[in-house]
């Protein structure tokens, strides 16, 4: 219940934060919403010597809409994304995913950036961010760079972010009018994390699937795009049979996780069932 001692910094600018990160290196942990970090510190599973609290950097928070895309500050909370009229209108799957996270208190404090960087395989954001083909902008000692969502999640709790980098923005293209999305999830009953979550963006022309993007989390130790589903359905009529056949591939080539909450077979099954239901819902 009680964290170990640490030195605490609350920089008010990004540069200040990056300098601190460079100075303290591996001894430091970046604190955003705190909902992953603080519990692990209380259980002393993490005992960082330095905490860099970036929540007072105002620039990293909020959503704007330049040039046909949404730019989401990494410190934007789940609740802000859930309740933002702009997000609800332009990319509703983001609001819907945000609303499926944890509980109200967690959504009030937890940030999209914190969640993405933590890369918990059962977190909700990765599926949706993958399906949206988002770009993740990071800042480091050598300046800024952009990482594609599909390159971002690498392994369990591991992303393409370098130790001295900070995620600053998430860029999401606003889907065209004929593209609709939905996120379906089974809650792990205790934690509220996704036992399995499937995010689907379906672009249709008439009854045909022009393109479908399917992100899946909770199944493997890292979130993934179900490319088998996508290629199977692209260009095909959105019939129940075609959707079902495509959804069957939602866990193809994936090494599904086993833990006390679910078997690999069950997780793979959920990926298929939710892929099928999500696509069918969007196709109807």
């Amino acid at each position, binding site marked *: 219940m009680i964290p170990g001692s640490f030195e605490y910094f609350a920089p008010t600018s990004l540069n200040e934060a990056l300098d601190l990160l460079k100075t303290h290196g591996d001894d430091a942990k970046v604190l955003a919403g705190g909902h992953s970090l*603080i519990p692990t510190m209380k259980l002393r599973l993490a005992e960082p010597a330095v905490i860099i*609290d970036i929540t007072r950097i105002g620039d990293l928070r909020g959503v704007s809409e330049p040039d046909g895309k949404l730019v989401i500050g990494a410190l934007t909370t789940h609740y802000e994304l859930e309740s933002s009229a702009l997000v609800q209108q332009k990319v509703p799957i983001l609001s819907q995913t945000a609303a499926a996270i944890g509980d109200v208190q967690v959504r009030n404090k937890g940030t999209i950036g914190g969640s993405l960087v933590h890369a918990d395989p059962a977190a909700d954001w990765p599926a949706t961010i993958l399906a949206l083909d988002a770009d993740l902008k990071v800042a480091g000692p050598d300046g800024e760079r952009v990482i594609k969502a599909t390159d971002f999640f690498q392994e369990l709790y591991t992303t393409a972010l370098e130790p001295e980098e900070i995620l600053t923005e998430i860029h999401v293209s606003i889907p065209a009018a004929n593209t609709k999305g939905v996120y379906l999830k089974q809650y792990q009953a205790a934690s509220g994390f996704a036992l399995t979550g499937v995010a689907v963006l379906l672009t249709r022309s008439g009854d045909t699937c022009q393109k479908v993007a399917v992100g899946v989390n909770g199944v493997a130790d890292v979130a993934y795009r179900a490319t088998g589903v996508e290629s199977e359905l692209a260009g095909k009529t959105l019939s129940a049979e075609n959707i079902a056949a495509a959804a069957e591939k939602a866990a193809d080539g994936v090494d599904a996780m086993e833990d006390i909450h679910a078997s690999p077979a069950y997780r793979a099954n959920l990926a298929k069932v939710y892929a099928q239901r999500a696509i069918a819902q969007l196709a109807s």
Partner: protein
Amino acid sequence: MANQVIHTAINGQEHTHEVEPRMLLVHYIRDVVGLTGTHVGCETSLCGACTIMVDGQAVKSCTMLAVQADGAEIMTIEGLAQNGELHPIQEGFWECHGLQCGFCTPGMIIAAHQLLQRNPNPSEDEIRHGLDGNLCRCTGYQHIVDAVQYAAEKMQGSRERKEV
């Protein structure tokens, strides 16, 4: 590690203390400020017993450092009743038998407070979802739902009266 000075306003009263950076906000409120109505029920940010309002948002005060609350306006369960009069949510919990052992109750009431701020007329389903971050082991939640509905109606009524 160097202690830090923090300033907060809790239930309208200003406080200044020097704290260790690692001190959890809930310990600050309970043990330093001395407001023990906010409870601690777990270490993993799931039970919600420690829920308080920080700058208008319901948060779990066991998952926040006291230093993070520097400059914040905080409301705990002790700050909900005004001038000796119960808040409609408190009244609802009393009228509808929304509590038994009472340990989860302060956090539950604060979570309900946030819910009704954002959604003054919630459905039963919305109430249940709004309270998903708060565990109760005694009531089976039904009377808690009733309590929130009672409060919603009462608060709607007083809003309507004000508008008239």
